[in-house]
């Protein structure tokens, strides 16, 4: 009985991996398509396209690409919104990765970026 279960588990793993890879590839393609649309879009639509592309990269686990795209969105619209919230969380994930890898200078850089986002939120709410 246990051997039967072990076989089932062993058989499931490559399939699960394949499904995850398809999801990842689909999400990355979705993000790339959105970025391609952004190249020819109007200023109004740009931020929304960047945010959707950033969300797709984030869901695909592409942390650095997600950060890059959300930063483009934030540059275009420097205020509280989906980009600032996402960047706060992504910067923290990046900070944690670097801290665990022993790169404390890199970790401090991302902590600094999180504090910049917090300052923008403070300034906006105080009308600065």
């Amino acid at each position: 009985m246990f051997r039967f279960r072990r076989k089932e588990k062993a058989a499931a793993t490559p399939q699960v991996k394949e499904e995850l890879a398809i999801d990842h590839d689909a999400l990355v393609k979705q993000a790339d398509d959105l970025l391609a649309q952004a190249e020819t879009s109007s200023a109004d639509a740009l931020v929304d396209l960047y945010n959707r592309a950033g969300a797709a990269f984030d869901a695909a686990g592409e942390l650095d690409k997600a950060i890059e795209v959300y930063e483009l969105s934030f540059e275009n619209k420097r205020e509280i919104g989906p980009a600032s919230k996402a960047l706060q969380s992504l910067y923290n994930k990046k900070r944690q990765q670097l801290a665990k890898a022993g790169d404390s200078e890199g970790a401090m850089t991302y902590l600094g970026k999180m504090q910049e986002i917090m300052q923008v939120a403070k300034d906006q709410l105080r009308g600065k």
Partner: protein
Amino acid sequence: MTIINWIISNVLTQAAVVIGLIALLGLALQKKSVGEVLTGTFSTMLGFLVLSAGSAVVQASLTYFGDVFNFGFGLTGTSGALVASIEGINGQAMNELGLGGSIALTLLGIFIVNIILARVTKFKYVFLTGQALLWMSTLTVVGFFFTGLRGPALVIAASILGGIFATMMPAIAQPIMRKIMGSDDIALGHFCTIGYLVAAGVSKVTGDVDHSTEDVKLPESLSFLSDTYVSVWVVMFIFYLVAAIAGGDAGYQYYLESIGSSSSLHWLVACFLQSLQFVVGLYVLMSGVRLLLANIVPAFQGISMKLVPDARPALDCPVTFAYAPNAVIMGFIFTTIGSIIGMFLTMAIPGLPIVIPGVMSNFFAGGTAGVFCNAVGGRRGTIIGCIAHGIFIMLIPAILGPMLAQVGFVNLTVTDVDTALAGMLAMLPGLFG
């Protein structure tokens, strides 16, 4: 022995030197260059001296306010008016009360205890808000000083209590932080957590989480808060004016006699200038605090990330603002309303001093309380919870006020309720001993 005595009386009791040594240690541990270590150490010491200068200006202004207010309303000693200002408390404690060295060492001690607790317990939170740690170290030192502790025992006890608060306050806020942020990877590092939980409790019971503050159309910002010091001056001038009108010229002359001075200035002009002086003193004091912490806090942050890389960073309260900006505005408005009600309550309750609310404290603490309340009780819960929050954050400092006056604080009480409660806990043995 002579050398040890020399070190104790010329180094370890001199707050500016102790703070400089802490900065030097932090910079050296980060392997900064000799130039950076020297510059950082010097600027930290300079920060302490700037803080002291600002504190002296604030205290002079508060002496005017206290004398004229008490004269005008026939009040005495501990039943008079207290200005709620944690910055002013820190300035007086470090400077006039001579606790600067102990506070600086406790700041380091709280950081060490927090790191140890984050490493060995399941509460993996590292408190990274430098100013808040400075306020906590101030109140724990003041509390244990009231109890009678001195020297290393004072610093150790204050560090342990402060370190426990630095670890546990983010932990108890985290269930609601998870609701606010939709994730578990960032914590709250702001010592008003108990107030937020009280507000959230009231909000949960009275509110409706299905109707959020973010569904309401509100102004995008509170532009009158765009200049911090102008906002503080507007509020302080109102209270200074009330005191001046109540005291009149006789009140002003009473104040001049108490400081052994004389002046031909009209009492209304004196009121205006003194209110400006309070804000100037606060500006200088806060410049000193920022300079003082500028080299120490990055050292703490860098070392904590090396020692506890998987801990959640407990960050300052604006980390929540992006998730419910309307709740921040409503939180400020209704906490201010609550704090005005609280101020009148402190006038009505016998034995309590009158507490003047702080504008900036109401913005940051009130705004964050709004975000907490909205997460569990929607807009109705935010309104009712934040009014309750405003009353709470006035009553706790009012209760602590007389004890602070016994220690030697002049016309001041605290704002951040966690620091107030830590101070009260530290004072308990002194009350019953």
